Structures are given as C-alpha cells and as structure tokens.
C-alpha cells in the first residue's frame, strides 16, 4: 500500500519531467553530439566526428579568447550580481520600515524597470549612453563632468553595462527581499531592542541571519540567470570595444550565427554549462535550499 503510494507520487513530477526532457533532452544530446563534430555551414550536410578537437581548440588556442571570455563572464556575473543584491536589499530594508508612508507608491515605481520589456529598455539605454547625444552625458554635464565615451572604453563600458543591468534587475531583488523581510517575526527585533541592541546590531544579528536562506537562493538563481543573460551585452556593446566586454553566451551566439560555426558554438555552450552546473551544484549543496522544513 505504502509502496504503491510512493510510486504513484512520481506522477506529480511527470509533467515537469515530460516538459523539460521533451524540450531539453534531445537538444542537449544533440548539442553534445555536434560539439564533437565539425558541423558548420561549410560542413552542413556532410560533417564528421573530430573528437575533442573543438574543446581542445577552445581551451588551448588563444584565438578562441576562452580565458578572456571566462574572465569577462565572471566580471559580468559577479559585477552585476553584487550591486544588484546590495541595492535590492538596501531598498527592501528601507521599504520595510513600519513607519514609512507612501510605501506602495515607491514600490510601484521600483517595479517599472522590471515590468518594462528588458529588450526595449536596453535599446533606450543604448541611446541614453550615447556619447554626443545620450541624456546621461547631458546630465553629468550639468554637474560639470566632461562627456564620457561610455560604450567605447572598456572600463566605462563595464560601468555602463553593469549599471544598466542593475537598473533592469534591482526590482526583482527588492521585491523578493522585501517579502522575505516581512516574514521575519517582529518580536525578534523587539526582544533584541529590549535586550539593548541598536539599529545596526539588530541588522547584523537578526536580519542577516534570518535572511540567509533567501539571500542564498536568490544569489544562486541570480548568478545563473546573469551568467546566461544575453541581451544587455549584445545590445549595448556587442562585446566591444574589441572583445573586452564579450561574454561566453554572446560569443557563442556570434560563433553560431555570424560564423555559422555550430559545432564550436555548441562546445562553448557546453563548457559554459558545465562550469555553471558545477558552481550551481556546489551552491545548492552548501546552501541546503532544497532541504525540507525545520
């Protein structure tokens, strides 16, 4: 009886299994398979097995920029994630104050960047970062800063990319953090206050530990999402100047659709996925977010 129930319970997981396996198992297998071939536009109908050559090329041949791409991907992912989370958390803390008025108004306005299609916002932002005509240079001009060639200088390009990405993403982090903050029992703060804790102490000793699991979950999923977030780099800098802001996913895209090097693009994607999966599994393990209650 019990055994039958356990087997029956698997039926609840059937839809997601079907959905994900249907949409990913064949594509993933296919991608793995062609990454061992020379499939490209010029070996289109007839391509052949070439073993690990694509992988060896990517990992050893400096022309494939692998180290640089990995470094850029890390800058992009970590550089975006940290300010996003800090800003999201900070705003959530501010909004969580019980004596604050107009909370809904502020919160609604913070939702706007999230609610607007990212793809459109990015096109707007690419105009705003423009050297001669972008509104940003005009605004910083008001306080006497000389115009900056945002997208054509590596450092500034990173700044622009990350700021844009932060703008796009902070609402998501703010809302998740805010709702997690609101679920912390108020008594915990009150007892600490009675026990002599000031505002900073309460933050460090109660808020942070209570938020740990949310922070980790949001951090892990945010890391994965940002790592594979294609549009900001693609639309704003296209990886430039040079390849100095190019990241793995954008570069794979170029390999696939500019050079029609489907096999190489697959190999890049698979390497990227393996790196990501290893990190995700480590983070899942460490954070125990999949553990049950209690």
């Amino acid at each position, binding site marked *: 009886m019990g055994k039958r129930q356990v087997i029956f319970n698997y039926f609840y997981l059937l839809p997601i299994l079907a959905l994900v396996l249907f949409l990913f198992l064949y594509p993933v297998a296919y991608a793995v398979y062609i990454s061992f071939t020379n499939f490209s536009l010029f070996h289109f109908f007839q391509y052949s097995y070439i073993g690990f050559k694509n992988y060896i090329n990517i990992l050893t041949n400096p022309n494939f920029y692998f180290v640089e791409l990995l470094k850029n991907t890390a800058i992009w992912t970590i550089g975006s994630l940290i300010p996003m989370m800090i800003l999201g958390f900070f705003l959530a803390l501010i909004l969580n104050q019980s004596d604050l008025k107009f909370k809904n108004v502020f919160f609604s306005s913070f939702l706007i960047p999230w609610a607007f299609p990212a793809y459109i916002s990015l096109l707007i932002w690419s105009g705003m970062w423009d050297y001669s005509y972008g509104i940003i240079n005009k605004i910083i001009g008001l306080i006497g800063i000389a115009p900056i060639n945002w997208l054509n200088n590596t450092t500034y390009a990173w700044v622009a990319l990350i700021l844009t990405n932060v703008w796009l993403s902070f609402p998501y982090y703010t809302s998740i953090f805010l709702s997690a903050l609101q679920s912390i029992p108020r008594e915990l703060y009150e*007892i*600490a206050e*009675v026990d*002599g804790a000031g505002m900073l102490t309460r933050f460090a000793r109660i808020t942070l*530990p209570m938020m740990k699991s949310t922070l980790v979950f949001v951090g892990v999923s945010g890391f994965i999402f940002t790592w594979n977030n294609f549009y900001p780099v693609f639309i704003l800098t296209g990886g430039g100047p040079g390849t100095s802001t190019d990241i793995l996913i954008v570069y794979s895209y170029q390999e696939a659709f500019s050079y029609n090097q489907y096999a190489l693009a697959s190999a890049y994607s698979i390497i990227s996925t393996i790196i990501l999966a290893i990190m995700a599994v480590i983070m899942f393990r460490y954070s125990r977010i999949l553990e049950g209650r209690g």
Partner: protein
Amino acid sequence: MQSSAFLQLSDIWKSFKIKKQVIEVLKGVSLDVNKGEFVVILGPSGEGKTTLLRIISGLEVQDKGEVYIDGERVDNIPPKDRNVAMVFQNYAIYPFMSVFDNIAFPLKLKKLPKQEIAKKVREVAELLQIEKLLDRKPYQLSGGQKQRVAIARALVKGAQLLLMDEPLANLDAQIRMIAREELKELQRKLGFTVVYVTHDQTEALALADRVALLRKGVLQAYDKPMKLFKRPNNIWVASFLGNPPMNLLKVKVDEGAVLLDEYKIEIPSEISEKLKGRSEVIMGIRPEDIDIGGKIKGSVELTEPLGLFSVIHVKIREDEIRVVTNSSSSYVKGDTIQLAISGNKALFFDESTGELIT
C-alpha cells in the same frame, strides 16, 4: 507625581488607528509596583495587557501619561536603555542561534568579556536546568524547553524589572505547573520585580503578590489575589475569577433575608442592614459554598467530573447554578437535587452598577 514605587504607571492612555478607525485600548491606567513585588496583570484576551507591557518596555509609546522606573521618568528613553528584561508571549527565540548564543545575546550586546559571558550563561542555565541544552538549536527543543531559554535570556541580564507576557501559555498543563513553581521560587531567591501578564487565573492566583484585573482598558481591581477571589469588588471580577466562577443570581431583598425565586435565604443582620432600601440585588455565591441537601429544589443539567471534585450544573427555574461537590456523588441529567445556600457565605452586588455592596 512621583511615589516610592519601583515601577509607576500614571494615567496611561493608548489608542491604535486601524484603517481610520481608532481603537482605544488603554484608558487611563495607573499602577504602582513595589521593588521585589510580583504583579500579575490578568484579563480576557484582547483587552490591552500586552500593550501595557510594551509601553513599560518602551516598545510602544503611550499617547498620554507617564512611566517611571526606579524613580526616573523613562518616556524619552528607548527600550535598549531602560534596563528591563522581557519574555514574549511566543518566546521570540532567535531560530538561527544555539541556546547558548540566545542566552548570551544580551551580554554580548553589553560587550562583556567572553569568559564572563560563558560563566553567567552557565549559571543561569543551571538555575533553569537547561545546561545540557546549550548546544542545541531552537527547533530541537520542546515547548517547555524553549520557554526556559526565553526566561534564561531575560534573567541573564540581571535587569531589576522583568516583564513577562503569558510566558507559560503554550505549555502542557503538567509542565506549566512545574514551570510556575520554579519561576516563583526563582523570583523569591533573586528578588527581582516582575510584571506578569496572563489570562489564566490559576496562574495569577498562584504567582501574584498582587493581581491587576484589566478589562476594556481600565483597571477593574488591583489587590492581593485571595482578597480579590474572596471579595471581588464588582460582578465582573466575580464572574471572571474562580473555576468555575461565582454564581451570580438576581434576588429580591426581604426583611433579614433575600428571596431566590420562592426560596428564602437568611442573611446576617449587619448585611441585611446594608441592603435596606433596595428591592433587588445580585447575590454572589461560590460554587463550593453551596451544599447539597437543603430546601432549594433544582434539576441536574450536567455533571462534569473533574477529578478532585465534580461540577454539577443545576437548573432552578431560569437560573443555572454551578455547584462543586465531592467527586464521589454521581448525579445524572434530569435528577432532582436539593441545595442549601447559606446567607453568610454570600456576597451582594448593586443590581445596576455591579459594585460590591457587602
């Protein structure tokens, strides 16, 4: 305005606004608590007991009135500087800290040296017999153990004023009794002052030096527990205290007696004197003061055996009377029973104001 009391509340008013509706929770509460005294605030749910404690601790600020602790007015002092300790209704133990860290928390905030902290925590843990649990996490504790941790955390500070909000409410009857005894013991030993909130009167009677009865934002009574129990100053207090509570019956005043329906109950002449000039009063008589085997006839509605004794619900015309008897008697529904009510054990209340007459 100041008195010699250790804690003094003077004319405290407090209201809350919920969606433009104003709820008056406290309406001029004044209360003096002496040093080393154990005061219990007793009252039904939702009548402002917690709010009062929160005002004392500074977590809430009163709309009007003053709070003095040890002679000093504290209204402008934030909670962390009032040197009070508090136990919350639901414990409020930090779920992510071990028991040790929970108890040590107030000391760490005072930046005491590590060794001293460890020593103090160990001492108080031994006092509460939780020294074996110090390494556990809260989710590994039973309700009673959590309770002790919360109390330990409050005690370790060495605060002179301890505020406790229904600290035993979530415990088993069994454990509750033991915990109650220990707490009382501890307070005697260490001599701190306690303001304790509960809606369980057994607890109030067992623990309190004085009981403050709070209802509808007003102190209904403030006195020694047995005094309140024996001579409640109004019918609300009478109906609230005692389990089962006092029977309250409308009676007609007669010469040297009162009339319950057709039954005449003789009363002492000094009482009779005081009832003069009234036609109807409310008579209060404790269920345990009614004896079986008298002239007053009723029919049994229900018998509740409660171990030590039984409660028999008796219907006399439209009045329902509860009688406590020795548990060996066994009446069942429908039985006829005869009761004796002795006039000199009864109290009398004004029919309209509900105040005690005598």
